[in-house]
């Protein structure tokens, strides 16, 4: 496992980018909190949260060529998806299962992000299926370059594929097989494991007999890195390296971001049966947003009035998103029939 950060790419980030990162994390959090509230109010059926994972996701997003590189997210990737271009209204439309909902026309449960435009691949619920598929996207990138169908330096073209998943999901054969292709073909591929030490109720030690998911990288001949997933800049730093490796033909990287989920698995879960309140409280102290906020305040990049502005803006955006979604109609029953088969003319 290589974990030597020779130079910190994050040291070169300018203030406005740092603030943009902070904003991305904050907006995701406020939207996420609203979703929980809407569920408590009985207004929506279901929410699955990205809380606590914002640093891992925003640190990752900012290292990519956003909207161009392929990403194949999982259900916690709200902050990642927002950073790549999904809007709060898009997300609210999903929560309410509205007509013309952006990802699936209201067919999928919320948090199944998708946008062809932004190169966000439509995800399913069965975990880990996205990993070998994302390896396939990376394979296609490499194929086009090798076969001379595209210029490897053309930044308007995807140059890597990213797949995200939780640590529990690496137990799936799907993950193994995807990682193996990435290693064998030295694919421009990054696998980000967001290790929050639980798969619903199942703790890490019942899931695998290794301390770090990244220890599994050696089995595939790919680079493996462990990073503090609550430190957005640390994540950014290792991701910049992983991206560089992918872009330069150096192959795949397995990045493990250690983090925590401070809330139940989803709105259907009650986490009191499987973990103590003390454990949760302890972890909340490491909250990635508070942490970044404090460091930005310390560095004088953020100040109280700016913070206040951000908070108001976030509230306003979330309010508006909710209002727009609530006002939007539901899909008609007959929409159930659409888009089973792509018509022949519609050759992609």
């Amino acid at each position: 496992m290589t974990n030597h950060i020779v130079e910190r790419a994050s040291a070169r980030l300018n203030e406005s980018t740092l603030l943009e990162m902070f904003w991305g994390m904050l907006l995701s959090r406020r939207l996420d909190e609203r979703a929980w509230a809407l569920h408590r109010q009985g207004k929506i059926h279901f929410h699955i949260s990205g809380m606590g994972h914002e640093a891992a996701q925003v640190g990752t997003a900012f290292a990519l060529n956003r909207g161009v590189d392929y990403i194949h997210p999982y259900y916690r990737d709200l902050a990642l998806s927002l950073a790549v271009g999904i809007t709060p209204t898009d997300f609210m439309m999903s929560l309410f299962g509205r007509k013309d909902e952006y990802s699936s026309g209201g067919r999928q449960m919320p948090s199944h992000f998708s946008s062809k435009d932004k190169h966000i691949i439509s995800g399913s619920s069965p975990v880990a299926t996205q990993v070998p598929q994302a390896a396939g996207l990376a394979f296609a990138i490499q194929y086009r370059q090798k076969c001379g169908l595209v210029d490897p330096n053309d930044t308007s073209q995807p140059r890597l594929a990213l797949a995200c998943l939780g640590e529990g999901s690496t137990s799936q054969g799907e993950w193994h097989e995807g990682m193996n292709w990435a290693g064998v073909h030295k694919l421009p591929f990054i696998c980000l494991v967001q290790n929050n030490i639980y798969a619903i109720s199942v703790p890490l030690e019942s899931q695998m007999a290794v301390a770090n998911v990244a220890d599994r990288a050696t089995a595939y001949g790919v680079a493996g890195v462990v990073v503090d997933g609550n430190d957005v800049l640390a994540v950014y730093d290792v991701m910049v390296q992983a991206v560089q490796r992918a872009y330069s033909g150096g192959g795949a990287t397995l990045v493990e971001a250690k983090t925590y989920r401070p809330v139940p698995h989803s709105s259907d879960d009650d986490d009191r049966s499987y973990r103590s309140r003390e454990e949760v409280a302890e972890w909340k102290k490491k909250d990635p947003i508070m942490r970044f906020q404090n460091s930005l305040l310390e560095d004088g990049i953020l100040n109280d009035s700016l913070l206040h502005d951000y908070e108001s803006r976030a509230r306003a955006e979330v309010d508006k998103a909710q209002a727009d979604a609530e006002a939007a109609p539901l899909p008609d029953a007959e929409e159930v029939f659409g888009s089973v088969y792509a018509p022949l003319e519609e050759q992609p």
Partner: protein
Amino acid sequence: MTQATLIDAIRMAMDEEMGRDPRVFLTGEDVGRRGGVFRASQGLFDKYGAERVVDSPLAELSIIAIGIGAALADLRPICEIQFADFIHPAFNQIVNEAAKFYYRSNGEWRVPLVIRSPYGGGISGGLYHSQSVEAFFAHVPGLKIVIPSTPHDAKGLLKSAVRDPNPVLFFEPKKGYRAIKGELSEDDYTVPIGPARIAREGRDLSVFAYGMMAHYTTQAAEKVARTDGIDAEVVDLRTLLPLDKTAILDSVKKTGKALIVYEDNRTMGYGAEVAAVLADEGFEYLDGPVRRLTGLDVPAVPFSHHMQEFFMPNPDTIAEAIRELAGY
């Protein structure tokens, strides 16, 4: 005798079988401390311990393969697949392995394995928490498939499944987990795997269903009896593999007409086989077409409310289909 829900019955069956036979154990995702995401195994971890109620890694094929191995070694595993939609990674282990061990070893190696899984729509689960999967497995000789629709049957059939020397898929209509209530005995009884159950006797036409649809069909039949004077016979198939052909043919011999109701998508859904049997062996009894009222031929049940409701048959659409066929 108490009133209980479908899921209470399932829990009671597992509890009794674990109490009866120390070889019975439970594995699957979140079955331990969490008691299962639907709470089917609630309390069992505390009662029987971590050795016998085993939280598995998040990996369905190995949940089944571990069960197969343990069954070969003469334990009695109950493997829970959290949602039927997630059984597909284990397809190879079920179809190529569990189903074929007895045959491929000329009767030497047996796989006394139970696979439990909640299936079906109507709970806003979207494409991947609403699937019906029984049709895939009904094509596989060597497997047995059971789908209960009452608490009494759920307990008795699950206990039979645990005692069966063959692999049994036990699919539970999750929409009915708490919605379906009925009498439940605390006795150690079993309900045999195989025979269908006449849920309602009738003379005018036969309706075949299972799971949540058996429940709805019974409601629909009572309704059309009141409102239209149509006397529909409702046959709850309960066991899909092997199919109780005799019950089907006997019923249609009496009524002359058949409607099959299932919530799975239509094409190659389980009712296709029922219809095919009737079109061949029951042809001379038929006074009308064999109708199917089914889920829609789209990839899966959508999340958003209207689409979800439109996908699935319900007591009203079933009543309508009964009327239409009765009037043929």
